[in-house]
């Protein structure tokens, strides 16, 4: 085992491999900065270039770039309220308000450092889990996935803001939107009104862009001010450094959010979006100042950003142990591995343990390189927030349209973005919280699917399984966490 570990490390530190890793990391960051381009697009475009490379080099090129896409995706969320990828959506809730207060540097410092640290923790978790990879994946059947999603959906109450009723209404709208499309169980089209486009459901990118980015553009146009609202900007370098320190000040949250990301990433069928929203809600729930969330709380950035990079380490768990991808990106990576002669699956750990460790080191190093690169670029990028809105607003609008189109290369997604934008604007005007809608949208269909599968495969008493009971217990704790913690405060 130690021999394989050293072999993996020396392979990654080979000068040629390392150089390729740096190059791929930078390309991955560029993909993250462009809304609509995802880690999957990175992989699909880079795979042809790996034809003919040796397995280690090909794996490094693919994994390094893919691992850091979300690191850069947080930057656009903070600066212009347009998330680079869907997994950066929660970052804008607190990142953008911080930028508006003149602290774009600090917000980027927090996001990038949390991403880097989260990615490293994800890699470490993967190493620690190698002896138990199979046991972890085997533990999560449909009933456990159902209760995991239920746990997630209860966080609607946490992210609801001041009015629980408005939060619930928002969450229900999200659930209804998630139900649009072809229903696999009954083989019928639901709420599609005969439209083939709606048959496949509304995508997460039009929802996020419409809810958050479009209302922001309208506000920028109407006020005529810059994003930082013409407030004096803090000294950028020291502000970035402050952001870096914030992550280590909240080390416990960084660690917990990374664990959430890695654990949910390891469960095939739940998805990255679930991990980041649960991490965001967890950050708010355990914060000493939850009232600051939505107004520039650094914990609101640390939670999702730590989770969205650590989940890649988690997603490698089922990919390597069963050949079953833990995320859509890993599904693409599986195909690429085959080309270069690697076949992840039940026998992979036995035959290629050195490559497995090399993957861990690639994850760790790429995250460190990516974070450092973003930190050095942040001082220039942060200046976007002082550009007058007459120049910036049209540019953001173009980015929104490009992002919506690139998501599925479907112009109807642009229309969907604008329709959702009207809903988003209405929610801003009538003070309805938007995060519960996203949480309802992400988890609504999953709850329905896994409830159906649980009942059909395990019967009506599907909840009587050890891990299910633990998840039910955690859900109850989560629901009453506020009351319990308030009770403790009074008691003290």
């Amino acid at each position: 085992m130690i021999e394989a570990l050293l072999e993996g490390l020396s392979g990654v530190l080979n000068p040629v491999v390392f150089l390729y890793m740096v190059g791929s990391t930078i390309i991955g960051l560029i993909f993250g900065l462009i809304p609509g381009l995802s880690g999957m697009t990175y992989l699909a475009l880079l795979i042809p270039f790996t034809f003919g490379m040796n397995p280690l080099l090909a794996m490094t090129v693919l994994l390094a770039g893919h691992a850091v896409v979300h690191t850069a995706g947080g930057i656009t969320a903070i600066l212009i309220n347009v998330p680079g990828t869907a997994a950066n959506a929660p970052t804008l809730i607190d990142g953008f308000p911080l930028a508006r207060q003149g602290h774009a540097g600090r917000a980027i410092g927090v996001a990038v450092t949390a991403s880097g640290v989260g990615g490293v923790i994800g890699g470490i978790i993967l190493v620690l889990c190698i002896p138990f990879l199979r046991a972890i994946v085997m533990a999560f059947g449909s009933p456990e996935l159902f209760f995991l999603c239920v746990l997630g959906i209860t966080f609607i109450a946490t992210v609801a803001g001041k009015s629980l009723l408005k939060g619930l209404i928002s969450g229900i709208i999200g659930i209804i939107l998630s139900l649009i499309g072809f229903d696999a169980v009954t083989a019928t089209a639901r709420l599609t009104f005969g439209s083939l486009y709606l048959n496949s459901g509304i995508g997460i990118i039009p929802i996020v862009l419409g809810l958050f980015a479009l209302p922001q553009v309208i506000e920028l146009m109407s006020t005529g001010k810059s994003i930082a609202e013409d407030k004096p900007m803090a000294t950028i370098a020291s502000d970035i450094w402050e952001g870096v320190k914030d992550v280590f000040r909240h080390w416990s949250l960084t660690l917990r959010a990374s664990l959430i990301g890695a654990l949910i990433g390891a469960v095939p069928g739940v998805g990255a979006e679930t991990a980041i929203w649960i991490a965001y809600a967890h950050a708010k729930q355990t914060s000493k100042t939850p009232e600051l969330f939505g107004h520039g709380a650094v914990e609101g950035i640390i939670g999702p950003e730590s989770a969205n990079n650590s989940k890649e380490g988690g997603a490698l768990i089922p990919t390597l142990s069963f050949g079953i991808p833990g995320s859509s990106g890993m599904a693409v990576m599986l195909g690429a591995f085959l080309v270069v002669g690697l076949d992840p699956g039940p026998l992979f750990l036995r035959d290629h343990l050195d490559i497995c460790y090399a993957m861990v080191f690639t994850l760790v190093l790429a995250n460190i390189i990516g974070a450092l690169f973003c930190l050095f670029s942040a001082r220039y990028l942060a200046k976007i927030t002082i550009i007058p809105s007459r120049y910036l607003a049209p540019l953001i609008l173009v980015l929104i349209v490009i992002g919506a189109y690139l998501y599925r290369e479907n112009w109807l997604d642009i229309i969907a973005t604008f329709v959702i934008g009207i809903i988003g604007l209405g929610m801003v005007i009538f003070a309805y919280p938007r995060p519960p809608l996203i949480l309802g949208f992400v988890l609504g269909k999953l709850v329905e699917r896994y409830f159906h599968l649980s009942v059909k495969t395990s019967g009506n008493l599907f909840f009587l399984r050890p891990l299910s009971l633990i998840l039910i217990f955690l859900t109850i704790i989560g629901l009453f966490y506020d009351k319990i913690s308030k009770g403790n405060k009074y008691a003290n």
Partner: protein
Amino acid sequence: MGKGLKINLILILAVLTLCFKAGAAAESPEAFYKGKTVIITVGSSPGGGYDTWARLVAKSLEKMLRATVIVKNIPEAGGVVALDDIYHTRGAGGLKIHLARDILPPLLQATNFPGTSARWDVNKLMWLARLSTDPAVFASSPKKFRNFAEVKKAKEFLCGVDAAMSVSGTRTAIAFEALGLTNAKMVAGYPGGTERRLAVIQGELGGTSGSYDSLEKYFASGDLVPLWVVSKERLKENPQIPTVYDLGVKQEARKWLDWELEVEQTGRTLVAPPDTPQDRVKFLRETLAKMVRDQDFLRNVAKYKYSVQYLSGEKLQDIFKKVMAITEKEKEELIYILKVKYMK
């Protein structure tokens, strides 16, 4: 402008148009494709098996057509949108082709699939070539069932499928019908084949289906065991696996098994829009026939552990004519088998 001048101008324009059209008509398909951009649409996300096939074809076609060939993913509705798009495309002139998903096109038409009924006639499409086809292999966990006899004896045999009337759902329902498995039920709603395989390994499901390539490594590790293959002949890769015919097919259900096997012949197939000019259809068919013999193409295909089972466009066209000749009553019967009879 004088009247005479106007007439002269119209005449000149008419002559120029005629010359241009004549030139275009005289242009050989080979010259037509040179330097143009060809789009291959694929009804799945980047990275999956279909996408990989499309990219392999794009790479080879670029060389053979001396054109730029790009792949466009239209994954919506499990490939239905992409198929609908190629069916309704007009005026592409052979610059747009589609890689169709297995049995999806005839299945949609035969079952009046939601949102697509009365929109379709697969016989109008220009079928170019089949690249590959994989017979469905059924597998179980050795902790549950080791062979067909154990499946038959069981109180219940739960099989996972993506959706009712999906490719996996159709293969499963027709196999149950053919084998007379009255104790068998389908559970729909799994996101894909990988999740179904995991559910079988975990013991949540009794079995599932997939291509031999996708299941092979699980057979090698002992996580799964093969039960049967839906094919007339045994697999070359593993002749130990019995075919459905070896296990005894119910006489009254034989017609649906034969129908499915006929449809399965179509496999991963390239298709052009209905109005594609005949000379370009012919040229594309010839080019693809050459491509499947090209050593570079075959080497790249082998890297993915795929194999080519070519079938010409003309033969595909005949198969589609045959499989779509089913009556309305037979359609109803098929929908009942696929959607109701075995659904849990």
